[in-house]
Every structure is written in structure tokens, then in C-alpha cells.
């Protein structure tokens, strides 16, 4: 790990596509890609599962699959959309055979050790309500919100994943935010700062 930490600045100027090519033969390049996108993939899975354990498991599976398939990434689209494609398939396989319902109350062990208990509880409540609300709105609006807010994709990248135009993605997000506003008014208005 010391070696990995020491080489973290090795690829500052390389974009993802260049790194993905390097990663076919260079483990450090793959590690750099991993560090760049682990948060996006983790949040993507957490948004869908609402469960830290499952989100970590699916994140692990996603990157293991990306490692196995890195040679098949051809740069036809952004690396993150390719990675989200893998994450999406892992998620669907995870949910196969069971209802996509998640034990929200048992989940969300969001690490926030520095927060006072009340703030941590309020924060947990907010996240809990947002994730619950995402499950009540239409699937394409929820997916657009998850891709752009949780995974940090641009409108154009989300459009590639969803096979929709950029303007269609903006529309989905706008409608999704309206839905969230009506369904999570308490959660989004309570601020713990």
C-alpha cells in the first residue's frame, strides 16, 4: 500500500480514457482509475440498495468486473459511463429474485464520527428519507438523479447511460427534483448546520 500511496500523483494529467489504456498493462493506472471513481460507484450502489454492506459488496464486484474487462473498454464513450454500465448490471443481478426493497433502518451506517449524536441522527434521517423517496418516484427520474447527484455524472454522460438526450436528462432531473421536493419536504428543509 505504501507503494500505491506514493504513486498517487503519477497520472495527474492523464484522462480516464488514456488511463484505461495504460491500465491494460499497468496496475497503478487501474488503481488511479479506481480512486477516481470509487466514490461515484459506491454512492450509486448505496442509492439503490440503501444498505452499506450491500453497497460495498456491489462496489467490490463492480471494480473486480472492471478489472477483468478493462481490455474491452474501447473508449467509445467516457470511462465512467462504461463503469456505471457494469455497476448497473451488478445491481440488477443483485436484485434478481428478490423485491428491490431494502432495510433502510438497518442501513446507513454513514461514518460521521466527528458529529455530535443529534446531528448524526438528523443527517441519517435526511439520507434515509431521500433514499426512501427515490424509490417512490418514477424509475427513470430516480436513475437520472442518482447518476447526476450521487455518481457525479454530467448531463451528457447520464444521457449516454440512459440512452437519452442531454435535454431529456435535464427534464428528468427537474421533474425528479419536483417529486423529491413534495415527498421529502421535511428532510430537505431540516438543516443540521
Amino acid at each position, binding site marked *: 500500500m505504501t507503494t500505491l500511496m506514493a504513486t498517487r500523483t503519477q497520472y495527474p494529467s492523464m484522462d480516464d480514457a488514456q488511463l484505461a489504456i495504460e491500465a491494460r498493462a499497468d496496475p497503478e493506472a487501474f488503481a488511479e482509475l*479506481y480512486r477516481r471513481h470509487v466514490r461515484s460507484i459506491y454512492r450509486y450502489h448505496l442509492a439503490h440498495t440503501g444498505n452499506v454492506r450491500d453497497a460495498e*459488496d456491489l462496489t467490490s464486484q463492480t471494480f473486480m468486473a472492471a478489472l477483468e474487462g478493462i481490455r474491452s473498454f474501447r473508449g467509445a464513450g467516457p470511462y465512467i459511463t462504461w463503469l456505471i454500465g457494469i455497476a448497473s448490471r451488478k445491481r440488477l443481478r443483485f436484485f434478481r429474485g428478490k423485491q428491490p426493497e431494502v432495510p433502510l433502518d438497518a442501513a446507513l451506517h454513514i461514518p460521521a464520527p466527528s458529529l455530535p449524536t443529534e446531528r448524526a441522527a438528523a443527517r441519517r434521517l435526511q439520507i434515509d428519507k431521500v433514499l426512501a423517496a427515490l424509490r417512490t418516484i418514477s424509475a427513470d427520474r430516480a436513475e437520472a438523479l442518482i447518476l447526476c447527484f450521487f455518481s457525479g455524472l454530467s448531463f451528457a454522460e447520464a444521457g449516454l447511460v440512459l440512452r437519452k438526450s442531454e435535454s431529456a436528462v435535464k427534464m428528468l432531473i427537474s421533474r425528479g427534483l419536483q417529486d423529491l421536493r413534495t415527498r421529502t419536504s421535511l*428532510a430537505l428543509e431540516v438543516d443540521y448546520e
Partner: protein
Amino acid sequence: MNKDMLDQLPADEQPVASKLESVVEDMKVSPGFQWELENQLMDAYKTKGQPAKGWQAKLIPALGWAILAISAAFLLNLTIRSLAPDALPAAAERPGPEISFADNVRQGDICEGRLALAHGLNVFLTTEDKTGFVPVDTGNSLDELRSFAWSADGERLAIVGNTTGSGNIYITDPTGGETGYLLSASEAGYLRDAAWSPNGRLIVLWSSQNISTLYLLSTLGHGLIEKQLDVQILGTPQFAPDGNIFFYGADRTAAGLFTLSLEPSQPFLLMPEVEDESGFAFSPDGSLLAYMEYDRDEGEAHLSTQKPSKGEYRLLGTLPIPRGSGSSLPEAANLSWSPDGKVLVFSFGRNTADSAIYLAYSDGTGLVKLADSAYAPTISADGRCLAYISNKQVFLMDLAGVSSTSPSPASALLADLPAGRGSANFRLDKLQWRP
């Protein structure tokens, strides 16, 4: 979401967007998990081809299983080599029934037709005497070759390839002699697999880039037809004998076996019980659908047949699955029927080490384990031979010697897996006898 993106949203929604953004910021990855996964990825990279399993995998059981698997594979290999005439010439001095079986196959007396193999991003056919594999692309002029599909009459072999992410379909004859493009640099994107219609007029494609689009390619020169679906295709679509298309897929709420007619329509979920990408297959006459179903509470996997109309259900056999396997359940794969519809074979397991090949009788009289550490089973057109991959080699087994009451007959070595063009992954290996 950056400020520029926020600014592009309607002003009314921007406060909610900002709040949502701040909530999401609190969803942090545990540093311990991130560090551990990075280490595991790097370990897996060093042993690429057999990456590490899930991050939570325990080291000691894994080592134990690995030692057991290697020992079993070594003993099996030793036994098989001692029985195969080409692999160990000394065995020819004491010919037994297994040697005569292998000779019969090589002389073309039984199990006629070549085997096609996809391995390491290349496609191969057996030589006429089945002593080895030769690449279809003998001139090494084609790009990555991912998979293949035999036409129902066995007269044509479609080869699935990709050039910098654009799919190609090549057609060749059963000997790999004449190869030409049927589809070049397709907009369908990266193609993973294909399957022929029963009448040979269409090939259905599976693109890993456009998984909500079904692509139908005319073999009569009418081009590519796209059909947008409201579900995602997660396994190679197949034609049923009646011409309808079936595939493992998922929509927002459920996953399972979907069916789709070629009329203007959307697919509907036929059987949510189906959980494996290739763990289902129609009987040759189209009357029965075989599939694997999982009962996690009981820790069992059930191989069953059902009439597509759901009129009759029959349990063919039960296999144990580890309780609490979660998302790492064993998978049933390459489920395929014998031409007479009396037996079907499939592999069951999580990886090459613990995957085994089973045979089930369609009348429900038994389930027989045929080979350990083996996968990609396929039955010859005359129903006599089983071919499969084990320990980087291809083996043949005489199905005439299989019964539910006696040990499985020894296998004969056909050939080593040939070297591919890219990294090998057993999940991408495909082996199919010419129909």
C-alpha cells in the same frame, strides 16, 4: 453536480438540488473499505485471469478449496491422460473401452461434426479428425472475436467480433473455409453474443453497450433492425422453436426470463423464477422449458421443466447451495438438451474450480454428476458425446456409458485449449458442437 450544472436547472429547483447535493456529500466511502478493496484489486491484477473473489472472501476457506480443487484436477487429469491414446502413447498398448470411444470419435464413426470454441477473444474449430483446434481466422486478419453461433441446420457459423467497440458479424461454413462479413462496424456497439432464428433468416444480437435495444440482423441482406425495449437484456437472447425470443433480463422492479414476439410489442416477464443468464433452455420440440430455480431458505437449487403455458411442472433434480450465499450464489449455465430430448446437461458452480457438470433425465428419474472442475458442456448432434472444458483442456465423454446408478465413465482428452489473443476468462469460453 457542479455549479455549472446546477445553474442549468430551473431556478425553482435549484434550492432542492443544493440540499440534495449536500445530503449526498455526507455519503462517504469508509476509508477502511476503500483501502482494503484497492489492495484486493491490486492482488487480483497480479494474478489476472483469475481475479480475487468478493472482498469479503475469507482467505483460509479459499485456500482450502483451492488446494482441494487443484488436487482433484490433478488426479482427474492424471487419470484422463492415462486413458487418452494421443496424450499418453503407452496407454495404446492396453486399449480399453474409453480408447475405442476416442478412436471412434476421431474416425468420425460417432459424434460427427466439428466443435466450435470461443476462447481468449478468438474462435476455433476442431480439425476434421478432432485432434486439435485451429483458428477460424487463419490469416489473423480479423479483430477481436468474441463468440459464435451455429445456425440450426449446422450449415453456417456466425462469428461475433468487435473492432474498436463496433460489432461485426462474420459468416463462415462448417469447416471455417469461407469467411465473409454479414455486418461490419455496426452501430449496435460492442457485441457480446448472437443466436440464430430456427429458419436461419435472422440473427439476434446482444450488445453490451445498448442493453435496452434488441438487434435483429437479416441473413438475407435486409440489414439490421433495432427494437427499443423497456427492459434491459442481461443474457444472450435466444429464439424458441416457435420463433419467439427469450432472454434473461430485468426491468425496474423484477428480473427473470422475458419473452418477446417479433410483432410490434414489448417483452413481458414470463418466469421470474429464472435467475441465470444461460440457465434455461427449450427442449428440441419446443414443448418444455428447463430452468434452474433457487430456494435460498431451503438452501437448494431446483432444476425443473415447465410447459411455457405453465400447464405442467416437473422437478428433475435438486442441488445444494450454501446458505446465506447472497449475491455469490452458484450459477447454472449452458443448459442444453440432447437432440432426443431425453437428457439435459448443464454446469453449476461459481468458478472453474467448483463448477461441475451434471446430467438430468427429463423424465425426472435422476440427476448425475458427470465431471468436477468442469464447465461449458455441449452434446453432439447424435446425442452420443459430451464435450466440456476442464483444467484448460477439452474432454469428451461417452454418454452411452452414463447411468444414474453407476459411476460416470472416464473422459478422453480431445485437446488442450488453444492460446487466445487476449486474457482468458472462463465465463467467456463457449464450446458448442455443430448441430
